[in-house]
């Protein structure tokens, strides 16, 4: 029995190790200065880089944060500080359901809501779709950490005559800030790897991003295009791009784990 379950555990972990191994062996040698700083060359020609996609990913994440963080954090505040039991159950349930909406469906909806009326694909549409996807994740994470703030903090602040909304903003949120940041980072890490919703919104662009109303590229989008192509040089760059994207995502996840471990230690 022990052996069987142990083998299963090995099977579970194996893909991570294999993926990592192949990305490093196929992609690492292509990571150089040009990869980060240059634009793609003409189709089928060797050289160039993914600079446009890397910058694009960060712009999209910034836009997503602008939408997802305020809505998610304030919604989390409502759940933890104001909502009645019944209401908060429904909102949490709704957030979990919303989290399960397939990313391609998000792409369709934002395409219909933003791209068609604006007559064009844009960085803005890409940022909006990622931002909306972040909302339920940030909201749930915020609610969870706010619950960990001891009630005594709130009582003490209110007893000093500080109004509730300032208590929430200045005491509760500040105490839980690290946890909220953690939640936001995890949500960003998750949407950083999204490709499907960007197909019909951000669209891709081989140049440097210059305007939020123009199409923009993103790492996952460019990895998909390059992986789908027959060109060896593009494959080489796609492996490198995948490695960079994976390192970014894993870096956020691991550092967050480090941060939260501190938190749990402090609590227990």
């Amino acid at each position, binding site marked *: 029995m022990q052996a069987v379950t142990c083998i299963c*555990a090995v099977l579970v972990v194996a893909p991570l190790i294999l993926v990592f191994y192949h990305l490093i062996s196929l992609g690492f040698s292509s990571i150089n200065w040009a990869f980060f700083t240059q634009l793609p060359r003409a189709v089928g020609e060797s050289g160039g880089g993914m600079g446009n996609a890397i910058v694009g990913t960060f712009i999209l994440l910034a836009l997503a944060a602008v939408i997802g963080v305020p809505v998610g954090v304030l919604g989390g505040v409502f759940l933890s500080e104001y909502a009645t039991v019944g209401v908060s159950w429904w909102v949490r349930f*709704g957030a979990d359901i919303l989290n399960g909406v397939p990313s391609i469906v998000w792409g369709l909806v934002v395409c219909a809501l933003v791209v068609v009326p604006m007559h064009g694909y844009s960085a803005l549409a890409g940022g909006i779709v990622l931002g909306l996807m972040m909302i339920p994740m940030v909201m749930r994470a915020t609610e969870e950490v706010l619950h960990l703030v001891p009630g005594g903090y709130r009582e003490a602040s209110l007893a000093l005559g500080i109004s509730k909304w300032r208590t929430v903003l200045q005491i509760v949120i500040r105490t839980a800030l690290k946890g909220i940041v953690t939640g936001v980072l995890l949500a960003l*890490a*998750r949407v950083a790897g999204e490709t499907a919703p960007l197909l019909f919104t951000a669209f891709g662009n081989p140049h440097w991003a210059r305007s939020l109303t123009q199409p923009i590229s993103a790492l996952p989008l460019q990895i998909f295009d390059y*992986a789908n192509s027959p060109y060896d040089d593009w494959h080489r760059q796609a492996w490198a791009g995948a490695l960079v994207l994976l390192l970014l995502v894993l870096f956020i996840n691991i550092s967050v784990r480090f941060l939260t471990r501190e938190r749990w230690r402090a609590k227990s």
Partner: protein
Amino acid sequence: MNGAYASATRATPGVNARGAGTSRFGDRAFEWLTLLMAFSIFVLIVLIGYELFRGATPAIHKFGLRFLATSTWDPVNGVFGALPFIFGTIVSSAIALLIAVPISIATAIYLTELAPLWLRQPLVIFIELLAAIPSVILGFWGFYVMVPWLHAHAYPVLRSTLGFLPFFQGPDNGPSILSAGIILAVMIIPIVTSVSREILRSVPGLQREAAYALGATRWEVTRIAVLSYAKRGLFGAVILGLGRALGETMAVTMLIGNAPYIGWSVFAAGQTLASVIANEFTEAMDPLHTSALFEVGLVLLGVTLVVNALARLLLITFAGPTVKPQH
């Protein structure tokens, strides 16, 4: 169960009482602001449903329920039936569950009951990192590394041992429904495993002790006391994995072969609800074609909403909120 949790962790009731007098306007405004933000969840759900429905209306009017039951998807003649995509979605997800469920639950048992203590935490972290790998990377790796290996080594073995079954006959393309099912399994294993692990951990120690007291072995304790107690929660974990598998797009699009198919062979190329949207949406010419793709999206939304709601309800009623949400 849920109520006790919520009221204990909310601001203490006395504190919540209004009437401190000062800056009541600020308090009201802030509360309304946060309420608005929280309710954006419902606005978004309604908005998604409405937009898809609006886009799908022409196709719904034209085809009615036949859309779900007919298998001709023919953009040239403007005839659209989504059955092959529903079929591909169900079969690829079923394959994923078939592979993922035993492995995930066994791993969860290993992690909570059997593994040496020093190994548990690193394994859990590994599994959570696996869940963080973007789908496009798994698809890329799957297409260039996993599928060639399966095509060269695993599929011929399947064919020679189980080839008498209709599932393992027909030409082997490499990219196929089976390949997509396998990559889906890789993607849902971390979720099913970590939720199952939370479920097993929440089984009261008393259960185990009682079984030990009756002289049960470790495996018997696991089977009788832990697994049967946690059945419902584990089912919830599996359904949650199913919800993810049904809507997964990129990795599937890269591995499934993208050709509508209904038949016995798992070696055939297929198409799922999500992959057909990814393939055809930017280029669908005819407004009816676009509308049909919106209807495909609507079907996908409906299915995933129901499945996810079911999973959440199972998990909530099993364990209350002690089970952390998994994204």
